[in-house]
């Protein structure tokens, strides 16, 4: 099958990057009715690196991740994973693509009819057909890794606090050692110490397991710890991106305002 012009252009763009691109987004647009959320997002995530996306609340960060995962179909644009077009794939191809991804949802999205360990083992048992007892052991190991006691595994999600649920969601996202992991606000709702544990875990996933990570966070301390690269989204575009070391002298008034949390600046609070 020949590539569409959009895909072809995006492939050229991915090839021009300094580092091999694991994920390449070109001109991704998404609108909901009158709400024009993504207005042409271009983003590269280098293989084996951790990219953090920052940006105001409601700027479409979660929508962007869902577009990459194929949970929301973008209106336009190209999304390449290892140079392979993923927009409009479905069925087996989509399922195969999904098995390379891990996702921590902003609201944890745990299955409330299943126990905590079954949640964590879910992808292993159903997606990868790992044997149940072995999956349980892996799940308990991941539950410990996110700083929870093993006994928590036999509780139901509704019996956990918000921060605990978030950590279970994280354990579920990394349980199958995916190649590409998406973290939607991994440290929101956690105390500073636990947040640091989780940051460490994300760094381990990238450095030890060689995963590529795309995280969203509002927590600048967390961003500084886990990011190799930072991108800032505003009004549907990526307005700045660069290595984490450049964050403090980005030269962008938007980034300055955001990282210092000032109410005054180019980003209008009441749109």
């Amino acid at each position, binding site marked *: 099958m020949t590539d569409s012009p959009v895909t072809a252009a995006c492939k050229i763009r991915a090839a021009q990057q300094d580092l091999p691109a694991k994920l390449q987004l070109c001109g991704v647009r998404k609108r909901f009715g009158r709400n024009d959320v993504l207005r042409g997002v271009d983003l590269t995530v280098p293989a084996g690196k951790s990219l953090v996306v920052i940006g105001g609340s409601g700027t479409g960060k979660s929508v962007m991740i869902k577009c990459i995962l194929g949970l929301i179909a973008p209106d336009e644009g190209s999304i390449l994973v290892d140079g392979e077009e993923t927009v409009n794939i479905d069925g087996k191809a989509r399922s195969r693509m999904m098995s390379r991804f891990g996702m921590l949802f902003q*609201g944890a*999205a745990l299955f*409330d009819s299943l126990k905590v360990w079954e949640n964590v083992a879910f*992808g292993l048992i*159903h997606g990868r057909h790992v044997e149940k007892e072995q999956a349980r052991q892996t799940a308990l190991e991941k539950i410990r890794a996110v700083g929870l006691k093993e006994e928590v595994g036999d509780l139901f999600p509704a019996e956990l606090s918000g921060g605990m649920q978030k950590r279970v969601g994280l354990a579920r996202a990394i349980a199958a050692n995916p190649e590409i992991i998406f973290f939607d606000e991994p440290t929101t709702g956690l105390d500073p110490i636990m947040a640091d544990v989780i940051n460490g875990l994300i760094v381990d996933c990238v450095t030890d397991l060689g995963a590529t990570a795309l995280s969203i966070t509002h927590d600048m301390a967390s961003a500084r710890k886990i990011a190799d690269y930072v991108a800032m989204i505003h009004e549907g575009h990526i307005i700045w991106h660069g290595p984490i070391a450049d964050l403090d002298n980005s030269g962008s008034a938007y980034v300055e305002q955001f990282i210092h949390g000032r109410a005054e600046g180019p980003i209008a609070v009441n749109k």
Partner: protein
Amino acid sequence: MKNKILVSFQDFVRSPMGQKTQAATEIGWEYVLDSCQAIGRTMLAFFAAVGRLTVFILQSVWYSLLPPYYARHIFRQFIDIGYYSLPVVGMTALFTGMVLALQSYTGFTRFNAESAIAGVVVLSVTRELSPVLAGLMVAGRVGAAIAAEIGTMRVTEQIDALKTLSVNPFQYLIAPRLIAGTLMLPILVLIGDIIGVFGGYAVAIYALDFSPGSYLSQTWDILESIDVVSGLIKAAAFGLLVSMMGCYHGYNSGRGAQGVGQATTNAVVSASILILIFNYILTQIFFS
């Protein structure tokens, strides 16, 4: 366009006599155009909804037939949909059979036709009342529960989470419910048939002084297998309808608690109405 109408309406009200006709025609045209647009929009939304429902039905049937089958989930739905509906369906059938005997007695004694009561009870129960009333009861109990559960999963992103874990929500969530609905309702209705006929029998014997032997023989004489079988086939269709509507409205639930509430209401109402419509169609097919 709304603004324009408003403006021309104000012109119309304020204008001196001479301008009246021109303003009036403008209002007329605007109004026609506006209503055409509204009708067109409604039609488009209607066809879009029909298309969405059709695609959903095809997808869910297709994935119900394809492996993997989640046996444990199917079994759990058997219990949820079948076993736990037994009390409701049993009570409905019992009192329906009882009241049928009572009502037909008060009517039929006027024509000295008491011997027809057993037949009226057994035919009404097996052909119509047991399947329809069980269907409606299950629509309220199970249809609502399915819509609320799947709707909540949609709203809390659990359905998205299923997809990211390479599990097809149609196979994992929807197929077990459709299978259980279709298989369990005939069993419920069969039990309802027996209880309903028993209810009529009990009233006839204990309240109306019929002789047990002749009541039973009249029942057996008139009953044919098509009466029961048609009722069971209806039941299977209603079971499929109820779970399909629950799944469809839940799966397409709007956002937030309000969306889930709306989905639940829609599931129950649409399932109930479809049951009545399909009951007519199936009766037409079986008995004409």
